[in-house]
């Protein structure tokens, strides 16, 4: 098995630009335009990561892009990436069949600071495909449920047809120790759920703002709204963690593409404490 790959494990550590090979074991269609790859490593060794980290994923013959890991970090023999088809590489990824060999470099990035939330109430705020990068953190928090106070998940989607990981949301809601609030932007009459933006879910969340750590995964334009709404509930910027996005080519802080002010997003981020980047965040086209 190993003889196939001229690159050894030692090479991978010495040169993080070399890919590790994984086979697509399963492709799951999620909501329209979104699909999940379940990957198994060819070398049969596990893949360790922390919630919030990402990989540089290579589809041979097409290209390599940064992708958040969306699986359970306690299951190292399955690597899960939930992908939205939005560009040339992801559109080709959507067509890849099980059995395809892909390359993975990583994990990279600063993970969600789960230890900062121990002993606190925890609120997750996300919308549409943003639930994917947040999922490993939710899963890990629920694995260690007793380490936290109240746990609230606020999720917003476009409509009732594109609620991501709906089964997971139902499972989490079914737990008596977790509150799940889902909002949709529009629905047909007769829908008995909440209609609005996810800010509406934050507004009714039963949390003690002063004792809450918030984890937000939304597009940059809407992250500000989430932070403001959380602020109105008493969750100040030093307890709000956000994840941002920039162009990435190397993932290891050497190509320069992912810079955000003085920060290299691939190694100093992509997860940031909001108050620490608030000034940068306000500068357009930074």
């Amino acid at each position: 098995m190993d003889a196939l790959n001229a690159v050894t494990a030692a090479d991978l550590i010495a040169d993080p630009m070399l890919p590790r090979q994984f086979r697509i074991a399963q492709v799951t269609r999620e909501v329209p335009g979104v699909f999940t790859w379940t990957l198994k490593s060819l070398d049969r060794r596990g893949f360790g990561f922390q919630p919030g980290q990402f990989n540089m994923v290579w589809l041979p013959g097409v290209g390599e892009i940064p992708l958040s890991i969306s699986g359970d970090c306690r299951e190292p023999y399955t690597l899960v990436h939930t992908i939205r088809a939005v560009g040339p590489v992801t559109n080709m990824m959507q067509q890849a069949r099980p059995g395809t060999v892909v390359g993975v470099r990583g994990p990279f990035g600063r993970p969600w600071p789960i230890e900062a939330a121990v002993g606190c109430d925890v609120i997750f705020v996300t919308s549409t495909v943003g639930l994917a990068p947040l999922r490993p953190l939710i899963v890990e928090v629920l694995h260690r449920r007793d380490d936290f106070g109240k746990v609230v998940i606020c999720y917003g989607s476009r409509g009732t047809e594109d609620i991501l990981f709906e089964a997971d949301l139902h499972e989490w809601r079914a737990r008596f120790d977790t509150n799940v609030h889902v909002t949709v932007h529009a629905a047909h009459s007769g829908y008995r759920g909440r209609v609005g933006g996810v800010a509406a879910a934050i507004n009714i969340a039963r949390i003690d703002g002063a004792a809450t750590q918030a984890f937000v995964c939304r597009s940059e334009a809407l992250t500000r709204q989430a932070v403001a709404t959380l602020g109105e509930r008493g969750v100040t910027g030093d307890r709000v963690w956000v994840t941002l996005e920039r162009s990435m080519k190397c993932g290891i802080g050497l190509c320069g593409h992912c810079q955000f002010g003085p920060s290299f997003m691939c190694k100093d981020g992509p997860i940031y404490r909001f108050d620490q980047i608030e000034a940068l965040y306000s500068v357009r086209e930074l």
Partner: protein
Amino acid sequence: MNEHAVAVITPDGLAALIGGLRDGGFRVIGPRLREQTIVYDDIDSIADLPAGWTDEQDGGHYRVRRRDDAALFGYNVGPHAWKRFLHPPLLRLWRAEKADGALSVTAAAEPAERYAFLAVRSCELHAIAIQDRVLLQGPYVDPHYRARREGVFIVSVNCGQAGGTCFCTSMNTGPRAQEGFDLSLTELLGDVHEFLVEVGSPQGAALLATVPHRPAGSADTSAAAGVVANAEGNMGRHMRSDDVRELLLENLEHPRWDDVAERCLTCGNCTMVCPTCFCTTVWDENDLSGEASERKRRWDSCFTMDFSYIHGGSIRSSGRSRYRQWITHKLANWVDQFGSSGCVGCGRCITWCPVGIDITEEVRAIRATSAPQHGE
């Protein structure tokens, strides 16, 4: 003052140094006149050096001119920086071939040759040290830079005159080479054409021992000091540099950015010639059969639209934001990232900008409308 051992050699001694390096298996790179420009290229012998040439530099202007003497190093820096050897413009990283349902990935071999750089200026020594910090001292090391950087033999030269766009004194990077070299030369153009040699390392001492040389006397050292003082005294540009980081970070929405945006072509020349710019991009080259793929890396520039592109568009789509990114990275963010300014005052970005945008002038313009503590 430095405590380097000093000696004096003649041009023949320098020729012997070059020969000694080549005999030692080094690939000697140094300044040569090619296509009306002084560039860095292979040096076979002392005859390849641009003897009797100088350069004339200003914003968007570079010309070579004949000197009225035979100085071997009587010019400043051209469009090439040493990064083109240590951090190559184009590099193949690895090759992947389909094999038995998987891929066989082979990393490209690093070059076996060792470089000797001849005529490295003080600003360039600082630039190399800056790139060492960027590429060797982060959480991830660039193995290709390391392979090329290790074992480089450096012969530096102290500038005898400043270039039209030079401002190393403003950036505390010259004109005198302080450290980071194996040997450092100061060209003495008195009655006798000689070079004061300072030894900077055991390897430098060993090489010097193999070529004819004589001890340096006080006349030699004061002549050399005079050469350096001459360069110090006629810098083409100046920039107050102790507060640039704060000045720029406090002025991210200054109207000057709109002004420079009207002139900047976002051509990226400045990033190509800058000796500290290190940004790269990677891409795949696939063969037509689909059986093999090569991952390659090349220099990239923050001035391109592609540089900040993520799905949906570029984060920095205006030229204004791209120019601001370059200068605030170079002069401000670099300090937070790597502990020093990214600018060494070599002036290349001024010389090679097609429209002559001058980094020192842009900083001065922002300073002019800022708070009193940022006065000139």
